[in-house]
């Protein structure tokens, strides 16, 4: 699905810079300043968004390291309880870090790669595939598209293009059914 934050932010910043900011009343200093801050904050977000996940993972890794070092601390009951708490938290954090192995950019690239390869196969099969295999291919692609477009429509339902928005299953529910 191509509606991704970096793309969305880019278009919002351009609209603010090219159209909205020049139209803000120069005499309204607060509005001028706030509008510029909106652009600044969105630009910062656009710049840092691709690094956000890596940043969090790096931070977790460093806190795990710190927790390991701090396990050498010795003390009374209060300290021991805190050490036990920290140790449990570090174990949970280590598990999270292990599961957070791939970068979001890698995830996106993998999806793009598979989309492209499926598309190529459809083109190839329609060029020289065995005719008997085409109905199965069509059934599979249509079934996959049904699930995919349901998610895409739900994701973008707030844009207001649905004739009957109530018929759309919320994206939260669709994703939690996985």
């Amino acid at each position, binding site marked *: 699905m191509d509606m991704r934050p970096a793309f969305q932010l880019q278009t919002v910043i351009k609209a603010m810079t090219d159209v909205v900011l020049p139209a803000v009343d120069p005499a309204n200093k607060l509005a001028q300043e706030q509008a510029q801050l909106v652009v600044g904050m969105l630009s910062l977000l656009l710049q840092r968004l691709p690094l956000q996940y890596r940043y969090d993972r790096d931070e977790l890794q460093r806190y795990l390291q710190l927790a390991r070092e701090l396990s050498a601390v010795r003390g009374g009951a209060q300290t021991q309880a805190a050490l036990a708490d920290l140790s449990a938290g570090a174990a949970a954090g280590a598990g999270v870090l292990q599961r957070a192995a791939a970068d979001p950019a890698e995830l996106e690239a993998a999806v793009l790669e598979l989309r492209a390869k499926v598309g190529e196969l459809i083109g190839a099969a329609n060029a020289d595939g065995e005719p008997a295999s085409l109905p199965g291919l069509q059934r599979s692609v249509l079934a996959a*598209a049904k699930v995919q477009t349901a998610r895409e429509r739900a994701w973008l339902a707030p*844009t207001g293009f649905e004739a009957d928005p109530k018929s759309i299953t919320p994206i939260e529910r669709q994703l939690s059914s996985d």
Partner: protein
Amino acid sequence: MLAIDKQNPPREWIESLRRQFPCEREIDRVLQGKLARRGGPGYKPIALATLCSGLQALLRAELREPFEVLEPQWLAGGASKLQMAFKLSWQRPGAGRTVTPMVLRMEPAESIVETSRLREFQLIKAMQGVVPVPEAYWADPLGKYLPYPAIVYGFVDGAAKPKASVSNVTGLGINFGPAARGPLGRQYVEHLAAIHTFDWRGAELSAFDVPQSGAQSVEWMLNWWARIWREDANEEIPLLRLAEAWLRRNAPPIDRLSLVHGDYRAGNFLYSEDDLRITAWLDWELAWIGDRHADLAYMSLHTLGHYSEDGGTYLQQGLMPMEAFLEAYEKCSGLPVDRAKFRYYRAFHAYRGAIIMIATGYRAARGAKTHQDLLLAWAMGLGYVLLDELREVLEQVG
């Protein structure tokens, strides 16, 4: 799809697409131009003064008598082109010194639909007296005088939707209100019949290639959009590849070549709210010579309508149910409606619409090429609705 840097498309890739997807010469020229500009700068806001000076250069080349451009102002509406309203004080042939309200319609650096201003200009001229259209004055099809290709036509009074109504950004789902539906619906059908029975062979339409009978027009049309899909798409959508193969396998022969408007819908005509008269049909840029069923099927897209007040009837274009449209059209045009072809073109339009909204809309906005990238991004929401409609149609036809 991932191997090519589409923001800086290599020449050999462009040539391979041209070979793989031959289409009409003018469309080929326009699409090549789009890719040639793609690696260049994005769209930067253009001052009205800059636009006026380009307009004056065009007018100096066209007019012998002195003229004056008055009261220039931006017009809103539409997702694809920049529009400036102005008044021209000029020596009008046959009318003497006069002040005429006009519109300058110009492309941005890249558009959600990359089309030919020359085709649009020729068509508006050809349609004079056939259906209500603005008077076409001048064209700058290659951007010789203006920053980008443009046309100048007459300003027409009228509204695209009721003043009090609210519709989404592209003017879809307009509710004209119960009283307006009958009169507007009748004209809507009559005008479509007039377009489809128009003798285009006698008109100056040199920017259009005339297909042979059979399915050549369909082949050109599919090549046109399959090529755009490859030029513009960011991520592959397997459903579109499946649809393209289905459309090619099932291309129906054409019984009669008609002028096809290509974007015949509510939102693309102006009307007078006082007497409910359609005053102008606009946006002829997607027209081609082909099968009339394409315009009919376009009207049937679920996204181009809404439910009646009682919630029981779906009104295509906010005007009337689809079956009523088709019956009225057959009666008015004297042309039969082939239901199989109708279904075929419904699939085609869902396919084309998804390409426009998801691929070209994304690509133009990603390259910061338009005056309203944000609107293009927002309108991508419509693309996924169309994609699902395409899936439904393909499931129905098997």
